[in-house]
């Protein structure tokens, strides 16, 4: 009776242990996954903006070259026989020379975004790592082998078939090993996440600042384009109105330009990289038990980031389509 009570007590302890360890780091799976997908969405949007702005940049540089305000030359050690290639560069009045035509206006910015993507992916890899499951499989395999050894030894000794000792203890042993490994793995994962977010905080802060300013400069350029179309449509509307020649078509053009401008102004407010910084800060505070940030606060912040990243993408896509339609 006493033995049975001890066994039940032991099993209950193991079960509670397993449940506790299983829910600890697993809780972070969805939010860390959301953090990763949100940053991925923002990166895709910034890359699309980079392509657009690079095209504009090349056109402006080309115009500057034609007007004589920018110098176009060949790159050192290029464009001559036996050289490895022929590449051009432009020399603005101020600043260093730049390869022309440029493939991206933000080559370093893209490196930073790739590093940010890798950081989020690394956090996700740690949360998703199925070490405990792999260890469980190996433990079960090892116990299976032990049972067969026991059987083989008994046969060799010519012993009659009896209740297996390994069989009797394999379940609690497996549970104990799995619980211990599960708890240990969770501690390793938790500490890795807490340390990474703590160490990365000042860098993420600067990197988010950098990309936030970059995204703002991009949207500011897009906003200027949309406002230009709006002011021109407004001026045409005014002129027709003053001359008494206002038509439905001119009213429609004015209304459409206002709608396109409205879309871009809303994109600036989405600010996904600012939201990334806020979400990362709260996650770091929660993991490191700083202040009174709860798990719910950190997750809500990540949810906000996810929505903002999607809004930013949707708005910029919508503006791209509206701009195409308006020619």
């Amino acid at each position: 009776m006493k033995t049975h009570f001890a066994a039940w007590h032991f099993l209950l302890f193991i079960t509670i242990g397993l449940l506790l360890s299983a829910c600890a780091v697993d809780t972070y799976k969805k939010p860390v996954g959301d953090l990763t997908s949100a940053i991925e969405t923002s990166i895709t949007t910034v890359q699309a903006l980079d392509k657009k702005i690079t095209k504009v940049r090349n056109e402006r540089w080309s115009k500057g070259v034609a007007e004589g305000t920018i110098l176009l030359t060949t790159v050192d050690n290029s464009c001559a026989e036996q050289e490895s290639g022929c590449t051009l560069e432009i020399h603005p009045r101020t600043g260093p020379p730049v390869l022309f035509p440029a493939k991206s206006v933000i080559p370093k910015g893209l490196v930073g975004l790739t590093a940010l993507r890798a950081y989020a992916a690394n956090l996700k890899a740690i949360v998703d790592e199925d070490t405990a499951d792999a260890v469980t499989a190996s433990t079960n395999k090892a116990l299976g082998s032990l049972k067969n050894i026991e059987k083989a030894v008994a046969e060799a000794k010519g012993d009659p078939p009896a209740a297996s000792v390994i069989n009797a203890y394999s379940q609690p042993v497996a549970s104990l090993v799995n619980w211990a490994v599960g708890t240990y793995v969770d501690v390793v994962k938790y500490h890795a996440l807490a340390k990474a977010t703590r160490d990365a905080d000042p860098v993420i802060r600067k990197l988010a600042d950098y990309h936030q300013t970059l995204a703002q400069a991009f949207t500011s350029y897009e906003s200027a384009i949309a406002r230009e179309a709006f002011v021109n449509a407004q001026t045409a509307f005014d002129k027709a109105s003053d001359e008494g020649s206002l038509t439905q078509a001119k009213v429609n053009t004015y209304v459409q330009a206002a709608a396109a401008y409205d879309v871009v102004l809303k994109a600036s407010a989405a600010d996904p990289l600012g939201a990334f910084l806020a979400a990362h800060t709260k996650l770091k505070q929660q993991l490191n038990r700083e202040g009174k940030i709860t798990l719910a606060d950190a997750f809500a912040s990540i949810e906000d980031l996810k929505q903002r990243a999607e809004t930013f993408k949707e708005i910029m896509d919508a503006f791209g389509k509206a701009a195409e339609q308006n020619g």
Partner: protein
Amino acid sequence: MSTIEEVRKAFKEQLAGIAELDQALAAERKKIKVMAFKAGGGLKPSEIARCKEIAATRLELIEAQKVLALGTIDALEIADDVDDLLKEIGFINDQLEDDLKKLKTIEAYAEKVASFAASAEKLAQKLVELAAKLP
């Protein structure tokens, strides 16, 4: 050369200046239009001229905003601290990859134990077979 922070600050300040002026011009245009409409007549020639001036100034501000945006993008690319920042985030990613390797090591140990047990199982079976052959 400037730091990222200095570029960011300068961009914000200059953009805020452009926005303030643009908003004031948009408000002035609206005021002229509404007052003329409420007075029941069209715009006076001076008001038409002022609206044209407003539109022209707004277009100049738009050009300034484009130059500011492109200049900011360029300045961020060559900011003093951008290379250090990229190195730092690279270092953090390396640390995270090490942590992941640590988790994989635990997995590898368990696999080793399992494979040792499997080898021992084969050895035991061999011994049983040998024992059976003994006279």
